[in-house]
C-alpha cells in the first residue's frame, strides 16, 4: 500500500495524488492514442461512440452523482445541444468550432432556466418533473417543424475545423482523436470542479441541504448552477451524437435515452468520473456485445438467426438489478474494492467497505 507523504497543501490540490497515479493515467492516455493502430475502423467507431456517451454520462454525473439531484430528463439537453449545434451551423453558417461550444452554452442556460422552478423539488418529485421536460422536448421538436424539420429529422453536416474534415466513415480516426480531445477537456473541467469550492458546495447539497445552507451555500442558486453545468456538458454530448449519427429526429432523443443515461451512471458508479466511463462502456458496447453473443450462439447451435425482441432492454434491466442488489457503488466501486484488496494484501477485511450505521437523522426541514 502506498503512503503519500504530503509536504505541501498542493498535494491535496493537485490533479494527481502522486507520481505513480499520473503515470497510470499517462499510460491509459497512450493506449487511447494508440488504439487506431490496433482496431478496425468499425472498432474505432465503437470507441468514438463510447467516448461520446462518456461525455453525456459525465454531464448527468455532475447533477446526480455530485449534487444528488435526480434527473430523468437529460435526453432533453442532449436534444437541445444537438439541434442547437446543427442549426447554428446550417442556418447561421457558424463553423463547428464556434457552434459546438455555443450549443453547450445554450443547453446549459436552458438547463439552468428549467432548474429554477425545480430546485424546490426532491427525490421522486424531481424525477417526475424532469421526466416531463424530456417528454415536452420530444413534442416540441415535432411542433417546431419549420426549424427542426419535425419527425423527418435533420442531417448533421461533416465537422470541419479550419478546412480539415472529420467524418465517421471518411475519416474515423480523425473523428476519434477529435472526440478524445473533447473528452479530455471535459474530464479536466470535471476534476477542476471537484477540487474547487463550487464542487464542494455541490457535494454539500447532496449530503445535507440544511447544513450546506448554514455554511452559507445558496442552495437554490447552486442547484440551478449544477443543472446548468450538467445540461451544458450533456448538450456537448448531444451535439456529438448528432454528428456521429449523421441524421437525427425527435426519436433519437426519446425518454428511453434519458433512462439509459441514468442507468449507465448508476451501473458505472455514482459520484466518480470513472463511473461515467464504465457506465458509458456498458451502454455503448452492450448492443454490440449482444449481437456478437447471438452470432456465437448461432454458430454453436447451427440454427438460423435467433432474434429475441427486447433482449437488449431485458439484459440492461437485469444488469441494473444485479448492481443495485450486489454492488450499489457500481463498477467503479467493485474495481475500487479489488484494487484495495491487492494494495492491502493480505490484510483486506471482508466488511471493510460496509457502511456504518447511519445515526438518527430526521428530515424535519423538508
Amino acid at each position: 500500500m502506498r503512503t503519500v507523504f504530503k509536504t505541501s497543501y498542493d498535494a491535496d490540490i493537485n490533479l494527481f495524488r502522486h507520481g505513480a497515479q499520473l503515470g497510470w493515467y499517462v499510460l491509459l492516455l497512450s493506449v487511447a492514442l494508440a488504439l487506431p493502430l490496433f482496431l478496425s475502423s468499425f472498432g474505432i467507431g465503437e470507441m468514438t461512440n463510447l467516448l461520446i456517451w462518456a461525455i453525456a454520462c459525465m454531464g448527468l454525473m455532475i447533477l446526480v452523482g455530485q449534487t444528488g439531484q435526480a434527473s430523468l430528463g437529460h435526453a432533453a439537453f442532449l436534444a437541445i445541444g444537438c439541434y442547437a449545434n446543427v442549426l447554428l451551423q446550417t442556418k447561421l453558417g457558424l463553423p463547428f468550432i464556434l457552434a459546438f461550444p455555443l450549443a453547450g452554452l445554450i443547453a446549459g442556460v436552458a438547463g439552468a432556466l428549467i432548474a429554477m422552478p425545480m430546485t424546490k423539488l426532491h427525490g421522486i418529485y424531481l424525477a417526475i418533473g424532469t421526466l416531463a421536460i424530456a417528454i415536452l422536448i420530444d413534442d416540441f421538436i415535432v411542433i417546431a417543424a419549420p426549424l427542426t424539420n419535425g419527425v423527418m429529422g435533420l442531417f448533421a453536416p461533416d465537422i470541419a475545423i479550419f478546412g480539415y474534415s472529420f467524418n465517421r466513415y471518411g475519416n474515423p480516426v480523425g473523428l476519434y482523436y477529435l472526440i478524445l480531445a473533447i473528452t479530455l477537456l471535459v474530464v479536466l473541467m470535471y476534476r477542476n470542479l471537484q477540487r474547487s469550492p463550487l464542487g464542494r458546495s455541490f457535494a454539500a447539497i447532496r449530503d445535507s441541504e440544511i447544513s450546506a445552507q448554514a455554511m452559507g451555500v445558496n442552495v437554490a442558486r447552486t442547484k440551478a448552477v449544477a443543472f446548468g453545468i450538467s445540461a451544458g456538458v450533456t448538450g456537448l454530448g448531444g451535439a456529438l451524437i448528432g454528428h456521429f449519427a449523421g441524421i437525427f429526429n425527435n426519436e433519437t432523443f426519446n425518454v428511453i435515452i434519458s433512462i439509459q443515461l441514468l442507468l449507465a451512471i448508476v451501473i458505472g458508479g455514482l459520484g466518480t468520473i470513472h463511473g461515467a466511463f464504465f457506465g458509458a462502456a456498458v451502454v455503448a458496447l452492450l448492443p454490440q456485445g449482444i449481437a456478437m453473443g447471438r452470432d456465437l450462439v448461432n454458430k454453436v447451435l447451427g440454427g438460423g438467426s435467433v432474434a429475441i425482441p427486447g433482449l437488449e432492454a431485458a439484459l440492461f434491466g437485469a444488469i441494473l438489478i444485479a448492481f443495485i442488489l450486489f454492488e450499489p457503488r457500481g463498477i467503479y466501486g467493485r474495481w475500487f474494492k479489488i484494487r484495495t484488496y491487492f494494495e492491502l494484501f493480505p490484510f483486506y477485511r471482508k466488511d471493510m467497505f460496509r457502511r456504518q450505521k447511519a445515526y438518527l437523522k430526521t428530515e424535519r426541514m423538508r
Partner: protein
Amino acid sequence: MSLLEIDNVTLRFGGVVAVNKVSFSVEEGEVFALVGPNGAGKSTIFNLISRIYNPAEGDIRFEGRTILDKAPHEIARLGIARTFQNIELFEQATVLQNLLVGRHRHRHSRMWNELLFTPFVRREERSHREAIEKVIDFLDLQAYRDKYIAGLPYGVRKVVEMGRALAIEPKLLLLDEPASGLSVEETQDVAFWVEDIKKQMGVTVLMVEHDMHLVSAVSDRVLALADGKMLSLGTPHEVQNDPKVIEAYIGTSDGREEAA
C-alpha cells in the same frame, strides 16, 4: 450594544406556541447557555437565528441590525456559525472536504475561474487549506483528515461538526448540544474547547446543552426555558437554584406530575 439580541420573539406552530415572548441578549465574548427540558424551545430558538423559521412576533438583531430580512444562507456571511443536534455532516466526503465547505463564506473565486482552475483559485485553495489546518490542530483532528465521515465514530463526527463551524471564522458560534452522546472524557474535551474558543479565538458562544456539569463549568450566563417561556436568567449557580427551574425539571412536592 449586545452581539445578539432576541427581542420579544414568539413563534407558533398552529396552536402550539413553541417560543413565547422570549427576550435575551448575548454579549460579546461570553458563553451563554440555554437549558430546559425537552420541547422547551431551545433548538427552535437556534432555528430562528438560522432563519429556518420566521418569528410571528419580535425581532432578532445581530450587531445591532435585524437579521429578519436575510435569507438562511446569508446568516453564515454575517459571522454566525452553528452545529446541529443530530449531526448534519456531509457523509460522503472526507473530513477535509467537510471543513473546507465551512470556508464557503470566504470564497472569492467564481464558477468560470474554478472550472479552469486558474492560479488565483489555487492561491485561494491554499489559503483555505491553511485556515483549515489551524482548526485541525485546535481540535486534534490530524488523524482523520482524509477519512470519510460515513466511517467515523460518533464522538469524532461531533468534533468535526464543531470544526466545520469554526472554519467559518464566526463571531458567534451556536452549539446545539455539543456534548450529547459523548463520554465523560469527550465532554471534558468539549469543555476545554469551548473555553479556548472563547478565550483564544474571541468567539462568542451560544449553546444548548443538557449536561449541567458542562453548562456550569463553561458558561457565563444561563437562560432556563420551559414550554417556550423564559423561566430564569442568570449565572449557572443562580439558575440551578431557582425554585421555578427546579419545579420545571423535577416537579413540585404537591403531587403534580411533571416531566423530568
